[in-house]
């Protein structure tokens, strides 16, 4: 099982990748601006600095993978929605939320949980856009997530063939779960503004103290509460809302 130290290094690696991308793009843009300025000044003309002519894009989506899974599992359910906003330099701000439940009804263990969750983070496209109309993307990203969880009172039986079985119960509890995620995936615009895409997630539980007394069978947004590291999958359909590009004033170059 990966150690906390390895999680730390993976986290730092992803943060580095996310942060260095925009700075590389900015550096390239500055270089381009300088080149433009030089050309213009040679002709003693008016300089126009056009910083970012990309449209604004807000995408809202729904995950269809977990609702399909819900149909095949009687003891758990989960639903997820997502939204992202294109910032600059191939970086997207991402917000995701959802809800779900689990119901454990084994012969030796009975309880139920419900939870909602929220995740925020960044995605960075790893393949450059071909043009300003190209919104397809392959991406990597990070998320920070939390989930308020409610667990009902639990009853259990400790099975012992020598001494005999013993039964007991635990009172209900409300607690929070925290985790961070490393995400990779892609999405493609299958019709104007309509995207299909998937994401694979590695999830790392940050504080499992409340999970030790009785780990939830399933935490919507995270997965199996028994595990400190979980892998998950989403398949999204999403719709993009776009509006006019930012307009920057034409700045006359001082003579």
């Amino acid at each position, binding site marked *: 099982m990966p150690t906390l130290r390895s999680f730390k290094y993976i986290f730092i690696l992803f943060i580095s990748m996310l942060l260095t991308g925009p700075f590389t793009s900015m550096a390239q843009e500055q270089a381009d601006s300088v080149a433009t300025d030089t050309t213009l000044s040679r002709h003693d003309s008016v300089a126009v600095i056009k910083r970012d002519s990309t449209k604004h894009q807000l995408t809202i989506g729904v995950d269809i993978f977990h609702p399909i899974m819900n149909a095949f599992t009687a003891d758990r359910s989960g639903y997820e929605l997502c939204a992202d906003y294109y910032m600059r330099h191939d970086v997207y701000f991402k917000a995701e939320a959802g809800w779900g439940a689990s119901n454990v009804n084994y012969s030796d263990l009975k309880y139920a949980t419900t939870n909602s969750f929220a995740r925020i983070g960044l995605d960075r496209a790893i393949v450059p856009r071909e043009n300003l109309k190209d919104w397809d993307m392959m991406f990597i990203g990070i998320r920070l997530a939390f989930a308020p969880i409610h667990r009902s009172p639990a009853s259990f039986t400790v099975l012992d063939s020598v*001494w*005999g079985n013993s039964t007991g119960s635990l009172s209900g509890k409300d607690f929070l779960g925290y985790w961070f995620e490393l995400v990779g995936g*892609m999405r493609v615009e299958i019709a104007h503004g309509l995207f299909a895409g998937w994401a694979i997630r590695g999830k790392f539980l940050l504080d499992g103290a409340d999970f030790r007394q009785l780990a939830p069978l399933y935490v919507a947004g995270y997965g199996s509460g028994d595990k400190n590291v979980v892998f998950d999958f989403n398949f999204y359909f999403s719709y993009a809302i776009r509006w006019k590009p930012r307009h920057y004033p034409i700045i006359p170059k001082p003579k």
Partner: protein
Amino acid sequence: MTKVLPFCTLLLGIICMGLFACTEARLPCDTPKIASLNILTVHYPTDTATTVVDTALPAAVFSSVTDHGVVQILFPQQANFTISLSPLSDTCRYYFTTDSAHQRVDTLDFYYQRSLDFISNACGFTYFYSLDSVHTSHLNIDTVRILNSSVTNNANITQLQIYIHTFY
């Protein structure tokens, strides 16, 4: 991006859906559910010896005295034994003999504290124990020594050493 690559990776994602969709109703429990009290029997080879050697008892019997009667566990020739403590109370009793053919039967009384432990959803709950003391008679047993008071489902830790009389 050209559309060929995105649609290929989209297809890959649909295939991945099938892989991630494989879940079982309840996973099998892959860890021991009962805390094991592991015992090593030893003896001094001579009256003047200062070090002990493992004692492979010919046919040891540990009999737990439960609410519903005595449950015998007969072991083949060996020096390592695993028994369990009662989850129903903070004390339990075993009868012990080094050989099923012998009439010399010792009594082992265990005093401990229980703690409820959640293993996993696959395994449920169990009790772990913290040994306080072990009282014994001395027909076969010279003395009893607690090496590790923590009794969990870790089968690799020996909690108790039983010193057997050299004439067993």
